[in-house]
């Protein structure tokens, strides 16, 4: 579904990604872990071209999306993204946050979009917040809304960039719960996170990134039970 070939990304002399190759299949839940500065967030943000790769190829659904001629806005409609800091639109109500893109991109009529939004809000138990503004919500609520906002576009894949890192500890659970449900529904997911429990429980594959490359890739059982590279062993000994 997503094929990454020889992906490089440089920021003003800082070589963050050094030739990443990876193949994500439909329905997989890829969890990416690694120390900060390892390039895992940059890798994720390259997948929907929020960061433009310096070189390399990214294919999505048989389309070469790193080709500058491609209409990236069209491609992004099929790739949801959830951010560490939620990034809800502060000037809009929750309902408008969710319906803005489907309506302005003419994918749904206003009524359809609202109906769909309410259905999704019910799914995460926040229907009564439809007319509230983001400022009045807790972090956990904001992140659940952010997930709903992405889902309203019916994406084929969901990208999560440290979705629980900015949350108070007691709110992490409610967000992970929504993500688990989403995983069970068959959504293809790529998750950058520090939640090792989530990686173990939900991931179909776990990737370890360090120094701008994927160092190790395995099923959660093998990844946590039998890490091969010394760098990963050291990392796991620190975080577990």
């Amino acid at each position, binding site marked *: 579904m997503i094929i990454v070939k020889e992906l490089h990304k440089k920021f003003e002399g800082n070589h963050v990604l050094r030739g990443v190759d990876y193949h994500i299949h439909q329905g997989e839940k890829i969890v990416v872990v690694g120390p900060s500065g390892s390039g895992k967030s940059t890798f994720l943000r390259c997948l929907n071209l929020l960061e433009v790769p310096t070189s390399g190829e990214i294919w999505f659904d048989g389309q070469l999306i790193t080709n500058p001629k491609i209409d990236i806005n069209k491609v992004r409609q099929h790739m949801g993204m959830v951010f560490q800091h939620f990034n809800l639109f502060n000037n809009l109500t929750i309902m408008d946050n969710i319906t803005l893109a489907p309506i*302005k991109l003419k994918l749904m009529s206003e009524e359809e979009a609202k109906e769909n939004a309410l259905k999704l809000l019910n799914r995460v138990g926040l229907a009564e917040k439809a007319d509230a503004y983001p400022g009045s919500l807790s972090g956990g609520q904001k992140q659940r809304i952010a997930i709903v906002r992405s889902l309203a576009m019916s994406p084929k894949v969901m990208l999560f960039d440290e979705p629980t890192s900015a949350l108070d500890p007691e709110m992490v659970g409610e967000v992970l719960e929504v993500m688990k449900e989403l995983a069970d529904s068959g959504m293809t997911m790529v998750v950058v996170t520090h939640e090792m429990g989530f990686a173990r429980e939900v991931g179909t594959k776990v990737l370890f990134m360090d120094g701008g490359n994927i160092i190790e890739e395995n099923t959660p059982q093998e990844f946590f039970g039998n890490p091969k590279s010394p760098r990963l062993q050291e990392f796991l000994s620190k975080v577990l």
Partner: protein
Amino acid sequence: MDWLDSVLDKAYAAFIAENRWQLYVKGFGITMEVAVFAALIGIVLGTIVAFMKLSTKRNGKPTIFAHIANIYIDIIRGTPSVLQLLIMWFIVLQNCKNGVLVACITFGINSGAYVSEIMRAGILAVDKGQMEAGRSLGLSHFQTMRYVVIPQAFKNALPPLGNEFIVLIKETAIVGYVGLSDLTRVANQMTSKLYEAFMPLIGSAVVYFTVIKILTVLLAKLERRLRKSDNR
């Protein structure tokens, strides 16, 4: 009660005799006319220039438009507005005999430079995650600007924009240099005519103050309304 009589006499001479209040009203009309039209030109021009200054090429370097915007802002901020007015009146627009029009254009161009910096700051103050979120949903840069970033930027910019308008109203007091009889010039002429400074000068100062006080209250109201979405 001699002093009260003399005050009343002076006030009568300065404002009432020979229907002189009409001159002040006319002068005030010119002051507001120039300020309002200049503000409109300034906001349109300033917004355009702000986007010019923020424009970047694909490699992140500023465009030719950004350089033009910078030169414009530098020149306007680097020269006194009295000089700008005289230059427009005697050189650039010397064939235009309509002083009010020249003043509106001059102050509009002048205000545009300051407004552009206010707008630019307002846009930059919006968290860049807002743009990223919009783009990640498939909205274009323009759509995200229009529906998400600009409404928030405008809210950020409102207090300094109000301030800029207030400065503009007072700054128009120099249009006397090109022969316009605005409120300040009327007061000044009255002073020389009556050999009496207190009433005309203080009287016109009170008018400026009152207008600006009313504006301040209205702006505070508008700001509160726009902050509705920030309620916690």
